[in-house]
């Protein structure tokens, strides 16, 4: 098991390196520098700025500097928020996004698996069809449509919940953003669970369990759930990426000061180092989380480890 985990970890390193180099080159291939503004800088000032940020060195030196900075956990200075480093900005904003994302993932996993199993047990009934139509709708409708409509309904019209982040505290302000973020994932996980649960329920070992007189809930809990979870678990990687992407929109709509909001601001302000830093950070996060999912997969399904 340890060997498997270590091998996986080693395999992730080239991926990460590729991502970082790619993102770095993309930013540096951009026409125009980070200090291009409406007013033209005098050449001396431009040269001094370039020197201060090491932009006058050849590209491979800059890349090397960036990579060696990364190893030390240094993502460089922000071009727009002049008093902060990118690392500080991420450290400041990420906890909020993490909380939001973790809650959404948890909600999606619990509700999705429950709904999917429920539909699988009542396969081809009216209830199953209704649930699956809802799931299809949930998958199709993007977060940036769901979120504003939820705000319009629950915050503007009914006034049950706060629409914004600032000026409110407590759990209530988390409710709408988390639901908006989780909804598409609930739908997807429900569909996956239903499909794989139906497959599992048709296998011989379930028939045997049933023949021994086990009740439905015991069959699900002790025999069917674990094998049925495998496709769901392998969806966790893409789900994490989707939730991170969705949180960019959700943070924008609800005015949550998380990493996604910084990312969009940085993108609109052409704050290259900040945007690059956040992409590198997110990519690392996603690769690491995928790694954890892979290892968990090995835990749940011993057949994978043997290979």
């Amino acid at each position, binding site marked *: 098991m340890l060997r498997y985990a270590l091998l996986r970890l080693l395999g992730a390193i080239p*991926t990460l390196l*590729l*991502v970082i180099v*790619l*993102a770095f080159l*993309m*930013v540096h*291939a*951009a*026409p125009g520098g980070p200090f291009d503004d409406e007013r033209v800088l005098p050449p001396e000032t431009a040269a001094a700025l370039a020197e201060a940020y090491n932009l006058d060195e050849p590209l491979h030196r800059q890349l090397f500097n960036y990579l060696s900075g990364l190893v030390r956990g240094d993502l460089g200075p922000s071009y727009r928020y002049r008093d902060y480093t990118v690392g500080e900005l991420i450290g400041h904003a990420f906890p909020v996004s993490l909380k939001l994302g973790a809650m959404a993932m948890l909600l999606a996993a619990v509700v999705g698996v429950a709904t999917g199993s429920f539909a699988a047990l009542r396969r081809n009934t009216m209830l199953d069809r209704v649930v699956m139509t809802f799931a*299809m*709708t949930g*998958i*199709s*409708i*993007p977060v*940036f*449509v769901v979120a*504003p*409509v939820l*705000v*319009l309904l629950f915050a*503007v019209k009914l006034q049950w919940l706060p629409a914004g982040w600032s000026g409110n505290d407590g759990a209530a302000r988390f409710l709408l953003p988390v639901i908006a973020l989780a909804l598409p994932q609930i739908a997807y996980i429900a569909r996956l669970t239903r499909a794989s649960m139906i497959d599992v329920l048709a296998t011989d070992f379930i028939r045997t369990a049933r023949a021994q007189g086990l009740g439905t809930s015991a069959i699900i809990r002790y025999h069917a759930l674990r094998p049925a979870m495998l496709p769901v678990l392998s969806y966790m*990687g*893409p789900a994490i*990426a989707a939730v*991170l*992407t969705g949180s*960019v*929109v959700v943070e*924008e*709509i609800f005015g949550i000061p998380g990493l996604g909001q910084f*990312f*969009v601001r*940085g*993108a*609109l302000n*052409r704050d*290259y180092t900040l*945007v*690059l830093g*956040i*992409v590198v950070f*997110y*990519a690392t996060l*996603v*690769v690491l989380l*995928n790694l954890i999912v892979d290892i968990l997969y090995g835990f749940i399904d011993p057949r994978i480890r043997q290979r």
Partner: protein
Amino acid sequence: MRALTDILARMRRNRAVVLSGGLLATIVIVAIIGPMISPHDYLQTDFDNLLHPPSAAGMQIFGTDDLGRDSFVRTMLGVQVTMLVAIVASVVSLLIGVTYGAIAGYVGGRVDAVMMRFVDTLYALPFMFFVILLMVAFERNFLLIFVAIGAINWLDMARIVRGQTLSLREREFVAAARLTGVSTARIIFRHIAPNLIGVVIVYVTLTIPQAILVESFLSFLGLGIQEPQTSLGALVDAGVNQMEGASWMLLIPATLLAVILLCFNFLGDAMRDVFDARSSR
């Protein structure tokens, strides 16, 4: 030819295909014809008539926006742009995906292993962030949006096509072509590719909604289609800013976007059933 009529017949019998296909066709036709017969155009502002609620008077059935522009014409323009971007982006992803998948599947061996490992690697990345990075680094223009969206949606296509190619290359007609000295490139494009059409059609139907999603996501954030041009994503964004006083500005484009995406997804699912039925016969 018989196979084709067979498929068409099965599609006609499938209610989901007929319903969602019909609804999509209606939306597209209205989106093209609507602006032509409307007395308004998408640029014309009217400062005496800001945020006017939908009314039949003056043909402003979707009301006006915060600059007094006619929302119906702008929404229809948005549908046109969204569809255009989605279709072109899907073609881009189709070209990349089919070429890549067919080469990997046909050449096989170590080349295949390396190529598919690369696809697996890309799968794990938060792609939307790279697209945003791309939009930041370069000027935002239509062409870039097409390419960027196409470039992130080709992975599924490549996987599917590779799988099909693997089985196709063992068939007699490919062996015959190889024996008569046809070049590898020609075998891939003239002998393998035409046989992939079935799967490709199904996956294009499923790629289009994904492309729509990416485009409207970018436009929603202000990184995609720029004013005065518009798309459904940009309209939803504009609607969010006016939602307290003028909820129609949010609800109309949001509903349209949702309906279009839902139709494409239903269509894609149903198409898969139609083509699967053929293979399992």
